[in-house]
């Protein structure tokens, strides 16, 4: 059967519309159907982004889902890991802690083997900032030692001690 519109390409889209009790059928090729634009044939949610995302969760979960991951639910919002897998989204910030283990492969899939190295909020981030400064100093210490700059290394070591006392 050929497209009703262009009469050149084979009809691939068959639309049945019901207007006020009247049934209207049209047969169009893909291009003409796209041009008509008016009707949106919903593939029934099968190819939606959340589903795509939840497939990332699903694939990563090698454990039988009927086991323990079903029962655990987040105290903040009540979501279970199964809910997360179905919607592709988490329910609250607590979920990241509660489902840390289950989320790990997913996060790795999306962002690679990385952790956050960007901005840190000033309020909740004080400890984090200190720890990062500490790491930086430790690296500097190692470098100073490698270059045999022992005086500098001693200064850095004192700086490290001071920071460590602030963290405790």
């Amino acid at each position: 059967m050929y497209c009703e519109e262009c009469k050149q390409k084979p009809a691939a889209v068959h639309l049945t519309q019901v207007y006020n009790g009247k049934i209207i059928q049209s047969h169009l090729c893909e291009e003409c159907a796209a041009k008509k634009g008016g009707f949106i044939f919903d593939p029934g949610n099968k190819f939606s982004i959340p589903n795509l995302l939840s497939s990332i969760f699903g694939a990563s979960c090698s454990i039988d889902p009927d086991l323990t991951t079903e029962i655990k639910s987040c105290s903040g919002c009540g979501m279970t890991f199964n809910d997360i897998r179905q919607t592709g989204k988490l329910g609250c910030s607590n979920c990241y802690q509660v489902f840390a283990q289950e989320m790990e492969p997913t996060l790795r899939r999306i962002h690679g083997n990385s952790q956050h190295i960007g901005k840190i909020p000033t309020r909740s981030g004080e400890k984090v900032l200190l720890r990062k400064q500490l790491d930086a100093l430790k690296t500097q210490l190692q470098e100073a030692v490698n270059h045999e700059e022992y005086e500098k290394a001693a200064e850095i070591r004192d700086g490290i001690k001071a920071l460590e006392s602030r963290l405790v």
Partner: protein
Amino acid sequence: MSIENILNCGSVKWMESQEGQDDIVISSRIRLARNVVDLPFPMRLDQKSGDECMQRVKAVCQEEMPAALNTVEYTSLAQLSILDRGILAEKHLISPGHAESDSPFGAILLNRDGSLATMVNEEDHLRIQCLLPGLQLAAGYEMAQQMDDFLESKLEYAFDERNGYLTSCPTNVGTGLRASVMLHLPAMQMTGQTGQILQTIGQLGMTVRGLYGEGTQATGNYFQMSNQITMGQSEEEICNHLQAVTEQIVEQEHLLRERLKIDLKYQLEDKIGRALGILNHARIINSTEALALLSDLRLGIDLGIVSGIQLNALNQLIVSIRPAHLQKCFAQELDPLQRDIKRAEIIQDKIKGIK
């Protein structure tokens, strides 16, 4: 109320294209996704937590703000008509999803010129957006940061050391930063290069979408390019990376345009001439065709073949031919045919006097 201004007037900050700059990069956008700790994410808000969330944000907006933010106002979406919400979406100030949502907890924090627009309770509690004309990623990030720092000083964000800023969707976790540029690439489209470029862009960690973001088509030769990964890189790295790739693409587009001017001079002028002809005389025009022809016109302006219209006006026009804008302008419900007729009218009105 500044939102009234924005809803009624034609121009928003990103439309103000800068003099003497090529218009390949139309606008730059910085978006930061943030959530408040101890409340469920918007998808899981119930009446109590939803109201709580709105109250908190509203309260923050009533406090004294730093000078750069002092025109920011809070407006609940439920207060706006569907038409007005559509207008905000068409001006790129909120996402189409946010405009269409029936959640009672949606809101927007908007400043006077629309350069800072923060969505409340869209996919995350807060989505801070800074939208500026041309290629201004660094400046955009600065502004977004100011908003971010201010909000963070009053609200406690959900953040953990390993995963960074916690977001509803795991694809946004980490920096929560989506940096994007809106590009106009007619020469690339004409010479069939876009497929290849898009592939390469993908390999560089960027993604390309259409004019209105996620799920939209690349109409009128407009492409929105943004970073894909949000964790594992610093915000500065993400912006610099996008800037570098954008500059490469701009250069490519330039080279192609130069080639076209020489190799296909007549075809180019013909295409632009025809666009002008149709735009000037059509009585009915749908938005796809209008966008395509306006894109040709834009190219004509860039190449100096067409004169008599400013790019600002063109930017405004592209938005004012969208459905919600048309309906607001003519203050009545319009069916598709009427819209197409009015669209033609508006276009002719704006472009008379061009040659």
